[in-house]
């Protein structure tokens, strides 16, 4: 686990990056959004909050986004479609979790493959709603 120390002596432990790297493609996004929306403020410690925010960004930038970028910018259309359908389902119930890939989705709407472009658009609609 990764430790974050509070000024009052309390300790917050979050799962380490190495384990997150083994997760399914959507899980890091769900985790980051969960901690941001549900836990961060409850720690009541500005320093710990800032350090955890930094760690959550690290999860997104080092693991979550590069992994999905590789698929969405790749040439395997079947894989792109199945990944998009996972994120479409996620965007219906937890649209904030999908926001970090908004730019990638916008790029996909310009794709010549109609199925891919339309699915990316659907997710973007869910994000904006």
């Amino acid at each position, binding site marked *: *686990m990764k430790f974050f120390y509070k000024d009052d002596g*309390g300790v917050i432990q979050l*799962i380490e990056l190495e384990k997150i790297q083994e997760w399914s493609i959507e*899980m890091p996004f*769900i985790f980051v959004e969960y901690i941001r929306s549900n836990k961060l403020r409850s720690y009541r410690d500005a320093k710990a909050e800032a350090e955890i925010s930094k760690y959550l960004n690290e999860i997104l930038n080092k693991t979550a986004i590069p992994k999905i970028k590789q698929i969405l910018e790749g040439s395997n259309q079947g894989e792109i479609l199945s990944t998009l359908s996972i994120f479409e389902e996620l965007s219906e119930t937890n649209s904030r979790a999908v926001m970090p890939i908004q730019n990638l989705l916008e790029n996909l709407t310009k794709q010549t493959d109609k199925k891919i472009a339309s699915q990316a658009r659907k997710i973007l609609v869910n994000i904006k709603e």
Partner: protein
Amino acid sequence: MAKKQISYDLKAAKELFNEYLNKGTEKKQVQLPENTVKIDDLNRKNALDRLYKLIDDVIDQINKTGRPSIQLPSRSSSNIIWDEENDLLLLGQQLQEKQFHTLTSVADITRLMRILEIIHELLVKDLHATKREVYYTDVKLFNEQKVSDKSIEDAAIMLYTTRNSTHIVATANGTCIGRLRIRDKTDIIDLEGLGSGGWRISPFLDNIEIIESDAEFILAIEKEAAMMRFAEDRFWRKYPCILLTAGGVGDIATRMFLKRLNKELNLPVFSLVDSDPYGHYIHSVYLRGSKRLSYESPFLATPDIKLLGVLTRDLDKYKIPEVARLKLEKVDVKRIKDLLNEEFVKRNKAWEEDLKLSLKENVKAEIQALSTHGFEFLTEKYLPEKLTTGDWI
């Protein structure tokens, strides 16, 4: 008149947590003694590989001699070893042989092969089955569940793995609540947000991952009734902790989950049990494992668990009235004497003294006896005070 609220800082418990945190980074793998069997907790792929290797060996023997046999570590009491250094019960290296062609073992080996076939199916399909379900897959062959249960344990030990790795699980009875967030596949479960009932510990622990916690200690509670008191008082909000109960002796899933919490979060673990020999036995099972499942002890035991209470010496210290105390029964006296003969008790002088005090004063008491001082006494005075002063064994 307003009740005077004393504030406790849980100093001693926090110090223990800090000590564990500092040690945590330098924690070494448990080194098992040479004369014991090493068991591995395997993922699905590795469990399948091990199963295929075992079957390949049998096929080889069939081709070479036509009379195959299987060797597996004996689970008889003479092969159970107490590892003093790690305070664990382990399985020694005595082997037993089961031959495919003798009348004495043919029924046994048939059941064992059927169990391996079931394990194969579960692993390939990534499914889990309870021991009861496994029994019902072939009632005619197993005849009664204790027979299929024995074959399941034999199969796990034959593969040198934990039973959970075979995807055959026992029904779990444990509940957990408090400052903990876990992941079950893509679901995040907040153990603070499940009402007073808490989270029913899943027997499918390979699907569970600890993802966040700001707890500072874990309390393993013997009884559901005491757990309800803590849950109703939302104890973990005031004192950051994780509460867990198995409603009696810890079942496999509860013990395995506790072990994982302790190991992964480096949290100190305390047990709260009745002040009687059965309570002390429950503590001992968390501490060093049970004899029957000695081969899984490294995955089930929590060797640094502390016995927080209720201690015999607490009865006077906290002025538990005579009417709330009980006399020992014959069976209690026998159990205390049995415990006093155990090496792990002899090695812990404070524990030995407390058991002897119980014998001398012919007394025992339930956790609920503390409520003679009011319903909140347990959560507002007794526990916080003990965790602050370090009054544990």
